C-alpha cells in the first residue's frame, strides 16, 4: 500500500509543481504584455505556455485527488497505469507516432534543403504553418488511433 501511496503522492506533487510553474509563467507573460511595448514577437505565446502548464497541473491534481482519500481507488488507478498490457500498447503507439513525426520532419528538412539549392521553391508562411501543424496533429492522431486499435485487438 505504501508504494501506491508514494505513487499517488508523487503524481499530486508533480501536478502542483506544474500548476505553480503555469501560474508563474502566466504572470510573467501578462506582466510582459503590459510592460514591454517594443517587442520583437507576440508575448501572448508565453501566457499561452503558462495556460498549458496550468491545464496539465489541474488535470493531474483532479485525477489523483480522489485517490488520496480512498485507498481502493488509489490502488486501482496505480494498477491501471502500471498494467503491463497498457504500458506495452502505449509504448507501441508512441513508437509509431515517433516514426510518423520523424517522417514529416524529414520531408520538411529535405524540402528546405532543396529550396536552399534553388531546386525547389521555398514554402510560404501558410504552407509552413500547416505543415508544422500537421507534424504535431498527425503523430498525435496516430498515437490515439494506435492505442484504440491495439486495445481492441490485443
Amino acid at each position: 500500500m505504501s508504494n501506491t501511496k508514494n505513487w499517488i503522492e508523487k503524481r499530486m506533487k508533480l501536478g502542483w509543481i506544474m500548476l505553480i510553474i503555469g501560474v508563474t509563467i502566466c504572470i510573467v507573460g501578462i506582466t510582459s504584455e503590459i510592460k514591454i511595448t517594443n517587442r520583437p514577437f507576440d508575448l501572448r505565446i508565453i501566457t499561452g505556455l503558462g495556460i498549458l502548464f496550468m491545464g496539465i497541473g489541474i488535470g493531474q491534481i483532479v485525477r489523483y485527488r480522489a485517490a488520496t482519500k480512498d485507498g481502493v481507488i488509489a490502488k486501482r488507478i496505480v494498477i491501471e497505469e502500471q498494467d503491463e498490457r497498457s504500458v506495452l500498447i502505449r509504448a507501441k503507439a508512441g513508437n509509431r507516432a515517433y516514426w510518423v513525426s520523424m517522417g514529416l520532419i524529414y520531408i520538411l528538412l529535405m524540402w528546405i534543403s532543396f529550396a536552399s539549392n534553388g531546386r525547389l521553391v521555398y514554402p510560404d508562411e501558410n504552407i509552413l504553418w500547416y505543415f508544422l501543424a500537421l507534424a504535431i496533429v498527425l503523430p498525435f492522431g496516430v498515437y490515439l488511433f494506435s492505442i484504440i486499435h491495439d486495445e481492441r485487438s490485443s
Partner: protein
Amino acid sequence: MKNILEELRNKRGLTQQELADQVEVSRQTIISLENGRYNPSILLAFRLAHLFQMKIEDIFVFIPEEK
C-alpha cells in the same frame, strides 16, 4: 500460446476483476489473456502460477508455430 486461466478462475469462483486485483493487472488484461490475445510477461506468469499454486507450463501451453 494457449492457457487454462478461465478454467482455473472459474474453479476458484473468482471474477475477472477479483483475479485482476490479486495479480495487480487490469481486468482488460485478464480478458485478453483468457481469449489468448495477449501473452503475459514472465513476472505476471509467475504471479498467476503462484496464485493458483501451479507451474507456469501447466497454466500456459506453448504451441510451436506450424511451418
